[in-house]
């Protein structure tokens, strides 16, 4: 091992990224949301993505999580090029390996909190009792207690947001993509959610991509990437 290798190993950067994005380009109609964004996400790390409103954070997250196909560029995950996978294989991968929290909720309105959280487990073949028990544990971890049987329309914004986060983590995914997961939370609830999220990343080696405009939330991350006009400038990556 060379000196260089030792240096990178002590900084914890020796492990190859779990997920790598290169030169992503994505336009919505005539708006170029991404203009060559690149980044790597490693197992067990929390990577904060920050940047002004409209800088392309959500679009980047959707491309990384395989929800939106970029116009150009590549997303590599575990040796697979996401843009080359057929839709069926991609959605299966999303279900088994990824957890996603959307910026604007997306809980299923007809299901109670606990059933929303249990849903990914049911889809993966877990029994209903087991799925509901594990869902209940995650809700509790995020400070949502006694609201298990409420439907999204009956929950507060912060409760729904925490249920969405619980749903993203319940299957023990390898990577979690969370878009402003604390946007509706007060500072105490934010602290509780972020502590639980950081704990999960450390304990289970889950990689977390965290989109946020809140510096106090970004401070839970190991690194920060700032987007500007749809690109990450190398200067703006801070370790």
């Amino acid at each position, binding site marked *: 091992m060379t000196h260089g290798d030792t240096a990178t190993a002590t900084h914890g950067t020796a492990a190859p990224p779990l997920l790598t994005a290169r030169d992503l380009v994505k336009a919505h109609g005539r708006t170029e949301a991404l203009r060559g964004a690149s980044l790597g996400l490693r197992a067990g790390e929390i990577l904060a993505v920050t940047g002004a409103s409209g800088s392309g954070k959500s679009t980047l997250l959707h491309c990384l999580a395989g929800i939106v196909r970029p116009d150009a560029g590549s997303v590599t995950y575990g040796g697979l090029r996401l843009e080359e996978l057929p839709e069926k294989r991609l959605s299966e991968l999303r279900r088994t390996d990824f957890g996603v929290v959307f910026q604007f909720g997306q809980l299923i309105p007809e299901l109670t909190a606990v059933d929303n959280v249990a849903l990914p487990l049911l889809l993966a073949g877990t029994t209903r009792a087991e799925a509901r028990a594990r869902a209940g544990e995650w809700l509790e971890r995020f400070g949502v207690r006694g609201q298990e049987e409420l439907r999204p329309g009956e929950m507060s914004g912060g409760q729904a947001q925490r249920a969405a986060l619980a749903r993203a983590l319940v299957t023990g995914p390898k990577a979690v993509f969370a878009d402003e997961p604390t946007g509706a939370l007060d*500072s105490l609830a934010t602290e509780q959610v972020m502590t639980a999220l*950081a704990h999960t990343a450390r304990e289970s080696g889950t990689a977390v991509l965290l989109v946020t405009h809140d*510096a*106090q939330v*970004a401070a*839970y991350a190991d690194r920060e990437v700032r987007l500007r006009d749809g690109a990450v400038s190398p*200067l*703006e990556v*801070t370790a």
Partner: protein
Amino acid sequence: MSTRHILLGLLASGPSHGYDLKRRHDERFPQARPLAYGQVYTTLQRLVRDGLAEVDGTASDGGPERTAYRATDEGARELERWAGEIAPPAPFVTNEIFAKVVVSILTGGDAGAYLLAQRAAHMGRMRELTALKTAPGADLTTVLSADYALSHLDADLRWMTTTAARLTTLTTEVRTA
């Protein structure tokens, strides 16, 4: 920040000597600048001079001789008055970061690059404080003092972000003034 009132406050729970007061201060306010011994002793002497504290006795416990102090009744009243007094929201805020930005514009420097670097330094400190408060076994004193520092750094950071986005206009304004 009134060191004399903080020391009086620490004396409220019973007599204490200078070394002990310094140690308790630093524990109670972990993110504050640690008190210097010299400052503790001069403050105690002033409290005695003003009748707010008095010598409780000296002991050596085999080691160097130490003078213990206790608060007087007048000290207790003064402490109560101070604790309930509204701290005036600062009329002038020293903003070194803003000063650097303006000076940088005046001298043709790169204020944008400076703001980016300053932002990274602030984020680095915020990550340290966050690690401190989320470490297993961190007590509430540690959490709350880290939170206080985090909120202030966050305020700086928001200001830097908005300023960075408006540098072009600011540059025009500063240079034509």
